[in-house]
């Protein structure tokens, strides 16, 4: 840089400016208020945040000191010898079920847990995860991408969606899976050539890419669903005493209680059928239903033809991550119909429910708790 000697300049100090210089300064100041800035889009911002969080969680894992690593390694080695023996004799479904039990329960944000234990947080309420290049590349929320190792031993990925959030997952084979609030899906980091297998806890809508040679299996605690390519909904919440499958198109084969002592039951169902496995009666039953009622949640609304109030409130509390207490036990089993727009906030929804049921709702001081009770004003 060329630099002139400034020795001869008088008072090189902005406080001693001439009037003309001061005006130039004022104008420059005005001008700089209109400076065009590069804007950072919300998507880019989220993507960068995901990267920051990912790096932070990697650092945390690395920051164990060497003593503990050595200690942990020797313990792990002993454990592996034992566990390895057991795992060797178990099928993929069992392994995935164990992964599901291990995955973090009740995080605030949707989490993608990779085979190498990396945890990626998805901040959006409705997040998306897309696998590309046979699983080696994962695109998160359509903006940031993550690499993972797919060669070598089979590894599992877990997508954990807490209450109040949803996620859409696209697997490397083109299968799309909508995960509802409070759900967990375990799947291999890449499918092998003979089988496509996933394990579900909670509720998901599957749109499976057709493949004659490679069947797709959805395992849950009590039921196994086997398909070649079709669309269906599976609901298997741990706190429900039933597991249900609703078929939208194509055909599926159900197997209940595949791990029970008495062997398993197999059954094929047709579109419009809902198959329910009742845990207490240990029985698999079918009924004809309006498919929309069971799958509309993935498009952001709730269609109710004739649903018990408790069921409706349970669905709402999962979707919005709120507690709803019904102080009118008489109404618990009463059935209601209608359509609720899940884009609206919980207060608007409860307002609609209150009008229909003739109850009043109150928000408790604890922000996430609502009470439905008898209306103070009698009609």
């Amino acid at each position, binding site marked *: 840089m060329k630099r002139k000697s400034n020795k001869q300049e008088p008072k090189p*100090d902005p406080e001693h400016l001439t009037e003309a*210089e001061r005006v130039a300064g004022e*104008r*420059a100041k005005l*001008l700089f208020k209109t*400076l065009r800035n*590069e804007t950072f889009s919300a998507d880019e911002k989220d993507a960068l*945040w995901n990267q920051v969080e990912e790096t932070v969680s990697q650092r945390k894992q690395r920051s164990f000191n060497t003593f503990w690593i050595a200690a942990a390694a020797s313990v792990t080695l002993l454990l592996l010898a034992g566990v390895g023996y057991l795992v060797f004799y178990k099928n993929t479904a069992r392994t995935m079920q164990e992964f599901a039990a291990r995955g973090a329960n009740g995080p605030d944000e949707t989490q993608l847990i990779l085979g190498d234990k990396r945890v990626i947080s998805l901040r959006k309420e409705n997040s998306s995860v897309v696998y590309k290049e046979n699983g080696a590349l994962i695109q998160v929320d359509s903006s940031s991408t993550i690499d993972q190792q797919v060669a070598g031993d089979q590894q599992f990925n877990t997508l954990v969606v807490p209450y109040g959030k949803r996620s859409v997952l696209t697997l490397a084979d083109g299968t799309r899976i909508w995960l509802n609030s409070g759900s967990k899906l375990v799947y291999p980091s890449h499918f092998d050539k003979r089988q496509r297998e996933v394990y579900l806890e909670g509720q998901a809508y599957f749109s499976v890419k057709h493949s004659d040679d490679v069947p797709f299996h959805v395992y849950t605690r009590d039921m196994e669903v086997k398909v070649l390519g079709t669309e269906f909904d599976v609901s298997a919440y741990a706190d429900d005493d039933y597991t249900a499958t609703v078929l939208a198109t194509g055909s599926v084969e159900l197997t209940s209680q595949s791990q029970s002592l008495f062997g398993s039951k197999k059954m094929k169902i047709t579109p419009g059928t809902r198959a329910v496995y009742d845990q207490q009666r240990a029985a698999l039953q079918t009924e004809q239903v309006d498919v929309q009622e069971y799958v509309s949640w993935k498009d952001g609304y709730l269609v109710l033809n004739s649903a018990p109030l408790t069921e409706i409130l349970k669905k709402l509390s999962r979707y919005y991550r709120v507690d709803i207490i019904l102080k009118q036990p008489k109404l618990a089993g009463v059935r209601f119909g209608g359509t609720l727009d899940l884009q609206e906030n919980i207060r608007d929804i409860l307002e609609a429910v209150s009008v229909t049921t003739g109850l009043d709702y109150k928000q408790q001081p604890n922000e996430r708790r609502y009470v439905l009770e008898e209306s103070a004003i009698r009609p």
Partner: protein
Amino acid sequence: MTHSDPDHDTWLRFISGEPDAFSDLYDQYTGVLYAFGMRYSTDRDLVKDCIHDLFIDLHGYRKNLARDANVKFYLLKSLRRKLHLAHRKSSMLRFDRWDTEDSLAINTFSFSIEEELIISEKEREILQHLAAEINLLPDRQREILYLRFHQDLDYDEIAAIMQISVPTCRTFIYRALKQLRGKLEFGAILLIMCC
């Protein structure tokens, strides 16, 4: 610097280790940092990488950060240092440019006078002329004007960011204004002659 403003609260919460404060800090400053970084570079990914590294550093050193810092100034300074290092690394690898100095140059400015200001036609012409003149100033002088008038930093802070002394900083801004004044008068005469 008042210590009761919400931005500073986020900073204090962050230092004391509150879990949410890190993402709040990110939400508050990342837009400003990105706009700032793009002043010195045209490479979006490079700027994002530097912001990423900056937040990783913040998270790692959070216990040792000064509680009474001017947060925006501190973040801008840190980001500029990161950009400078990245810039030096990349120019070291380019043999065709080995003789150029390794200082970080600020990009030319683009102003939106038309949309932002309600002023007379004459004043607008003067400002447009001034905008062109500002873009002709040496890099360092333009950078000082930017830090002073757009980021509202004081001389001490500007000097710290640009790694120059406070008197040099004052000299630079004085010289810039003197030059702009001279050019402006000339421009104004031209305008009068044209009309």
